[in-house]
């Protein structure tokens, strides 16, 4: 059934790195357009907006600390949750690749060792951009606005995408190391709930019991929320206090997570047993 011409192809071309990166990125993105993943990614921020905003705005409205509206207060956490959700998809995808053995095959092909990771990361950025865009639209609907100068708005988006990138890198690392798509998702949902609810995203730190306040204040989600709130501003009159002491910790968490994840990825990717 297979005749000899199947194995005859004389020229062996030289692969281009950029073409490989593009092909591997499209490989991850293409199925999301037809298996419903794009739809899920786009509706998740709507769910988070409705799920957080509706039940909490009445309770929290009374205590919000001078914020123009609770929407303004809550929006950073909604966007962070949406981006973290995208990172879970990245982890699922990495675990699927690992378990299907396709990583092994790529390693025996003329493909750079970090290329599969690089292309999965760019595909994650596609998910994060969707998550951020839909979150911003939802935020606008419930009353969230950017009150700072344009550079602050750009900073808000860049910081969100940086956070998305490191969360995806971490998720990808866990997925690739775990090699089990079914087990990877629960592992990642737990910290998401823990760090999301025990943060200043929903309510101010003073509303938590005193013994847990240091954790709530200093953990990364809260630091991200502080920075994002500053970049968005509070109201037309108070455009937000963007200083290094507010933005610095968030950037430090991002840099720290990247500093941990990237070397581990290089180790996993270039590992030859």
């Amino acid at each position, binding site marked *: *059934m*297979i*005749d*000899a*011409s*199947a*194995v*005859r*192809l*004389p*020229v*062996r*071309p*030289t*692969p*281009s790195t950029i*073409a*490989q990166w593009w*092909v*591997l990125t499209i*490989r991850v993105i*293409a*199925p999301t357009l037809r*298996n419903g993943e794009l739809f899920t990614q786009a509706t998740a921020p709507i769910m988070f907006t409705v799920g957080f905003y509706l039940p909490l705005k009445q309770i929290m409205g009374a205590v919000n600390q001078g914020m123009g509206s609770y929407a303004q207060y809550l929006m950073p956490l909604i966007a962070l949750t949406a981006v973290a959700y995208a990172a879970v998809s990245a982890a699922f995808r990495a675990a*699927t690749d690992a378990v*299907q*053995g*396709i990583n*092994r*095959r*790529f*390693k*025996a*092909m*003329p*493909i750079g060792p970090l290329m599969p990771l690089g292309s999965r990361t760019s595909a994650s950025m596609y998910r994060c951009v969707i998550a951020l865009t839909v979150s911003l639209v939802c935020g606008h609907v419930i009353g969230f606005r950017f009150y700072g100068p344009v550079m602050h708005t750009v900073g808000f988006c860049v910081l969100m995408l940086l956070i998305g990138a490191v969360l995806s890198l971490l998720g990808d690392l866990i997925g690739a190391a775990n090699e089990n798509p079914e087990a990877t998702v629960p592992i990642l949902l737990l910290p998401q709930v823990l760090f999301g609810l025990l943060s200043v995203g929903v309510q101010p730190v003073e509303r938590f019991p005193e013994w847990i306040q240091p954790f709530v204040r200093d953990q990364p989600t809260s630091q991200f929320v502080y920075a994002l709130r500053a970049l968005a501003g509070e109201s037309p009159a108070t455009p937000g206090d963007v200083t290094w002491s507010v933005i610095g910790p968030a950037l430090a968490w991002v840099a720290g997570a990247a500093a941990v994840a990237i070397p581990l990825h290089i180790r996993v990717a270039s590992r*030859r*047993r």
Partner: protein
Amino acid sequence: MLSTDKAVVVHEIRKAFGSVVALRDISFEVERGEVLGLLGPNGAGKTTMVDILSTLTRPDHGHASVAGHDVVADPAGVRRSIMLTGQQVALDDMLTGRENLVMFGRLQGLRKSEARLRADDLIEQFDLDHAADRHVSTYSGGMRRRIDIACGLVVRPEVAFLDEPTTGLDPRSRQSIWDLVSDFKEAGIATLLTTQYLEEADILSDRIVVIDHGTIIAEGTADQLKERTGATYCEIVPRDLRDLPAVAEALGALLPDTTRAALTPTSDRVAIPAPDGPNTLVQAVWQLAAANVELRDIALRRPSLDEVFFALTGENTNSSGGRHAVAEVSS
């Protein structure tokens, strides 16, 4: 020092994982266009050998080259020259067969249009027209294996590594993989085929290397291996099994004492060494006829590769081992 006219050169390769030694001082060569069968039971070290040659694993000692490229010093050169299909089919399950082919073509440097043409070509060659636009997750085992190998052929490899390519396949799919290996040979592609099926090694390989516990225990053509581990023997079945003692009596010196002693009331045949081939058989027939023993069957037998393999690996459970295994009385 490495001669580049050899497709694969393996010299004193050693590899251990922790305290487990996977390969001990393995050396062999594969010529261009040759099919070498690497035969061994599970855990013998076959996959480790393939992993080293395809640059997935680094050897602890020794050196190896593939298509003239050293696996440690020039892994990129090796990767440009090989195709690898592992025991596990390695495809993107979320893509269709055609999309997988185009993706691998583009990863190997084909332009989009070239990759599409090549995909069409391979789909036709591999008899996958009906399924090309379905997700590979819906494919049967044989179809998955075929598209997996096709993805390795989007550009021409100089050396193909097929790691147990027919494990778990139905006979028809297995036959199509066998045909493909013959095509590799015709096209001058050196092939290293690992298998635990003796039949497969026997049919496909020009030469066979038998490994067990990480050591080469035999090497040669299928015929040489059969010769080495057991000469031809003659098998005799009387019409009435109660005549077995009479058969043993009539054979006289043709029947070795050890075999005679091993005869039991439940034995159903007698086997004698046949160093002179047909002459031994004629001699046996003559002696048995003189003793008036009626026979159901008498024939010259050569040990199957299975028996050779069991003899070599010492896994034959019902014998004292070695070449006498085949000369003993079956029970």
